[in-house]
């Protein structure tokens, strides 16, 4: 197990998980982590798979609250309990078309994972300041960083860079993961411009395996369809997602 700090409040942990890798079938899937035996925090924490190498899995996580903070204090030799792989994957990236990957905040974890798979991809990573980035801005290699304050890469959100990248490609596809406001912006850009887009969304989860019904996300209403029967109004992020096409889901 290795646990290293990548940037401000951003850590990466790598650990052996051969059983999970056996069932793993692609970028987008996540695991659910139980850090400590204490019941003060009853729920597992979902974390995207950021890399799979040999019999090891990596995650990239941000220290936001009690559990991620205690994760950052772990040392090699400590053990965590991991459930997974859970959820579905990004799809359709194998067809050779240009893919533009957009990751905001910790949403970059699954995007980095996908980036390694997709040869024809450009990746745009957004953060508030340079402190939160750990990659270098290298447009030649198709890696674009953005920051709110312009302290590294391109100043502004990921959206302008996304737009210019989309313009420069033929029939591109978009794959995105990040905070809800970013996903919303990507979604509306994609829908307006009719660009095939997949979004990996987050939701508070109690079980991660489809038995609590906690992780509901609203499906987009389609004309003519009465959203009255079970699971036609909501999908479950943990089993139907976390990856949805941009047309499928609605953010409030």
């Amino acid at each position, binding site marked *: 197990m290795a646990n290293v700090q990548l940037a401000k409040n951003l850590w990466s942990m790598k650990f052996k998980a051969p059983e999970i890798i056996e069932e793993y079938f692609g970028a987008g899937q996540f695991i659910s982590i139980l850090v400590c035996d204490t019941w003060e925090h009853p729920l597992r924490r979902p974390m995207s798979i950021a890399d799979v190498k040999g019999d090891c899995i990596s995650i990239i996580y941000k220290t936001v609250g009690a559990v991620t903070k205690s994760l950052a204090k772990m040392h090699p030799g400590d053990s965590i309990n991991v459930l997974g792989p859970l959820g579905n994957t990004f799809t359709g990236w194998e067809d050779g078309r240009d893919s533009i990957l957009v990751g905001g905040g910790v949403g970059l974890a699954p995007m980095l994972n996908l980036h390694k798979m997709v040869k024809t991809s450009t990746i745009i990573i957004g953060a508030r300041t340079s402190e939160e980035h750990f990659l270098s801005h290298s447009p030649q290699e198709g890696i674009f960083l953005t920051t709110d304050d312009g302290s590294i890469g391109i100043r502004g959100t990921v959206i302008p860079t996304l737009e210019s990248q989309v313009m420069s490609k033929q029939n591109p596809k978009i794959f995105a993961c990040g905070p809800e406001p970013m996903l919303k912006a990507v979604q509306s850009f994609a829908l307006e411009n009719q660009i095939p887009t997949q979004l990996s969304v987050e939701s*508070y989860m109690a079980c991660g395996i489809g038995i609590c019904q906690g992780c509901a996300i609203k499906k987009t209403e389609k004309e003519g369809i009465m959203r009255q029967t079970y699971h036609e109004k909501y999908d479950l992020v943990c089993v139907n997602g976390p990856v949805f096409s941009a047309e499928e889901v609605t953010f409030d």
Partner: protein
Amino acid sequence: MTDLRIKIGDITFSNPVFTASGTFGYGTEVSDLTDVSKLGAIVTKSVTLFPREGNPPPRVVETPAGMINSIGLANVGVERYIREMIPLYDNIGTKVIMNIAGTTLEEYCDVLEKVEVISSNICGYEINISCPNVKKGGMQFGVDSSMTEALTAEMRKRTERLIIMKLSPNVTDITSIAKAAENGGADAVSAINTVVGMSIDSETGKSQIYTTYGGLSGPAIKPIGLATVHKVYQSVNIPVIGLGGITTGLDAVEYLLAGAVAVQVGTATFRHADAGEQIINELHQFGDSKSIEKISSLTGAVKTYTK
């Protein structure tokens, strides 16, 4: 080895560890993560007359040693339940208790009648009376003893299978509700359902649950569940099924000592899908270490200082 079998009404269960409604789906979803046939019984999520989408998200949030949920009884409805779920129970290898919810007395009865007419290996019904009764101004069945008695009696008329009334702790005097269930002809009561709670994100100032209030579950409520089970055990002559915050075999033992004949495991399942199985193993260990012949001998055996 301790005999873990227990009896409710005429039915013998292989052990006293059941799953709690709403925390184990319809009982078949996680069969790759746990051996369902080891469980004493499965209690299904609440089924209503018509399909229900449930409440908008956010629906769940963690709290200290607990969680709040406001799923809003999302379920497929009884028709699809009968078509798609009940056939799966034929080979499930354990007993199935179907949990029923509704907003009028008629709705509860309709659901039950529809299931009664088909043959299945459902051995009983657990009745979730924590749903607001739309006819009585949104008042919950579970807070009113006459409504509880009437509902129980109507169900009793319609089935020979087990009727288990699930009690809500959000009342001044739960024993009067338990007695009403007994008078209405219930075979057992289960306690407790979730406790009303709320959670706020101080950073955003937002309620963490769409419906503002939700149901608190998990270890935090174990003391409330134990007190309730002990009170109910002393006030009725029908068996009590205990639940609320059970995560280990020793928690289960505490509930048995308080008066439960069986227990249900809810929130703990979200952490480990095989929590029920683990608890059964721990009950065996406990029984062995104390040379207990029959687990049923623990029921109500708590030593109190008074009375």
